[in-house]
């Protein structure tokens, strides 16, 4: 990453933490809740959310849910447990192998073909979402999102799966900024050091699957999105055309994942179009 861009992606971690903890407290309490729940994968994003939530609510009002599948790397669960232990927060382990395997046993038979890794991965992400929202009803808690700005822009997540949440404290932070925040919050070192992975199949890493590194993505996305430069301007500035084009195309193609479903307008006033209220309406 060029030094000039890295400098502009530097965050004031203390101020960011104050903002995000205030955000969590106010948005949750306004909605009439006093507890939160979130999936804890063993990765850096959900670890940062765990640290922020614990700062915002104290250890007694949060719950971490670990949802391994049989192919999940054992170190994922171990890293998640390290976060739980460090924060002293309530947690629960719900193995999703049973429901996911039962589903594909039936569906593979009906369709007569084995599901692709992508379909299996998406099903796992959605099984975790179902589990979290069910437990949130049991706990009377709001579900926290753990997708960062890089993932949201790239559309690197499962619609109605890991992208689903009530509120998301880290969705406006690029991956490199989540790392800075993680260091400030004291996230355990092994989580900071390991390569990011959705851990949906063996040896998966995000960067291998995406075809570029998070640093490359952040450097390009920051200039496309925050600085409003065009792909052509970045290419003229010396960035590899294949990289810039791949990222720009992903951002555009996955816009649908960032929006609610499109509604056909037939009336004078339509939900999502000219029926305009904040979600905080009445809170």
């Amino acid at each position, binding site marked *: 990453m060029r030094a000039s861009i890295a400098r*502009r*992606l*530097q*965050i*004031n971690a203390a*101020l*960011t933490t*104050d*903002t995000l903890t*205030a*955000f969590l407290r*106010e*948005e949750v309490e*306004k909605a009439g809740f006093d507890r939160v729940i979130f999936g804890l994968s063993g990765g850096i994003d959900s670890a940062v959310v765990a640290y922020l939530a614990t700062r915002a609510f104290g250890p007694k009002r949060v719950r971490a849910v670990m949802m391994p599948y049989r192919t999940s790397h054992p170190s994922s669960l171990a890293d998640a447990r390290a976060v739980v232990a460090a924060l002293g927060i309530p947690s629960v382990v719900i193995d999703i192998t049973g429901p996911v395997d039962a589903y594909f046993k039936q569906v593979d038979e009906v369709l007569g073909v084995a599901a692709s890794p992508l379909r299996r991965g998406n099903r796992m992400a959605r099984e975790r979402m179902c589990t979290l929202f069910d437990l949130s009803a049991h706990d009377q808690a709001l579900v926290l999102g753990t997708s960062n700005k890089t993932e949201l822009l790239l559309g690197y997540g499962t619609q109605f799966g890991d992208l689903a949440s009530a*509120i998301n404290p880290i969705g406006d932070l690029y991956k490199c900024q989540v790392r800075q925040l993680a260091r400030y919050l004291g996230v355990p070192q092994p989580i900071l050091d390991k390569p990011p992975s959705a851990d949906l199949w063996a040896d998966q890493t995000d960067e291998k699957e995406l075809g570029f590194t998070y640093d490359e993505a952040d450097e390009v996305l920051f200039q496309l999105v925050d600085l409003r430069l065009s792909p052509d301007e970045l290419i003229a500035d010396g960035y590899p055309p294949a990289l810039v084009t791949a990222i720009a195309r992903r951002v555009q193609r996955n816009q649908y994942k960032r929006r609610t479903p499109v509604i056909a307008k037939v009336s004078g006033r339509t939900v999502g179009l000219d*029926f*305009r*209220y*904040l*979600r*905080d*309406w*009445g*809170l």
Partner: protein
Amino acid sequence: MARTFKVALGQVRPVLGDVAANVEKHLAWAARAREEGASLIVFPELGLTGYQVQDLTLDVARPPAHPDIQRLVAASQDLDIVFSFVEESDEHLFYVACAYAAEGRMVALHRKVFLPTYGMFDEGRYVAPGRRFAAFPTRFGRAGMLICEDAWHLTSPYLLALDGAHLLILPASSPARSVQDEEGFGSQSFWRKLLEVYARLLGVHILFVNRVGFEDGVGFFGGSFVMAPDGERIAEAPVLQEALVTAEVDLTLLRRVRYTTPILRDEKPELVLRALERWLVRRDASAFPARDEAEEGCRP
């Protein structure tokens, strides 16, 4: 006129769309300010309604004569109160407005002139722009009101200063944006710099009162402050939390500052007027082609 007075900055967190709850909070905070010996309390932009009212505009708008508004006006018997709400005119136009109430009367009403309608802001979709800046007398000298974005236009404080304002009152709903800066939010740094320049160039006291709280993830940073005509911030509220901050404003400072650095004295408004007139004529001439050319262009 007193040489000093105590001002209170009411850095509240309004409840979106709940005018009754917000009026109650304003009244309670005004009572606290009175107990602390303040003569003036200033509340943030849209403190009675919340900021992103969108289609709630129709529900929260109040004409100045409305009982909700008059309750606050009536509370200004021995404490001047500046508060902000969505005003509905007789013509059913809606404005972002702030009122200055004193001795149980509404002394002045300012309608926000510059409505940010770009990026994350969408004010122009819901409300009409005000059309003037005018200073008015108070017991602390002449004052002028600006609402948030009004102050991002150089001409607004300039016009108020020429109109004799010694005190600029600036209710705001400014978002907490840009966490890159060591000093604080980028938006906060900008306000400090901007208002320091105005205070020093125009020789005015400035009361900047910004709200706190979140609306759909948008946080408002607070950080309200009192700035003296020499550019010093003599009191400043914390960020991201409600606070009632009081400060003693030294009105005699303005006299010395304006004598020492008489920039306002040396302003040449007649030069500005002539230049603007010339520029407006030129602009109109170039924006609308001459009659022949226009007709030429329309020919099928």
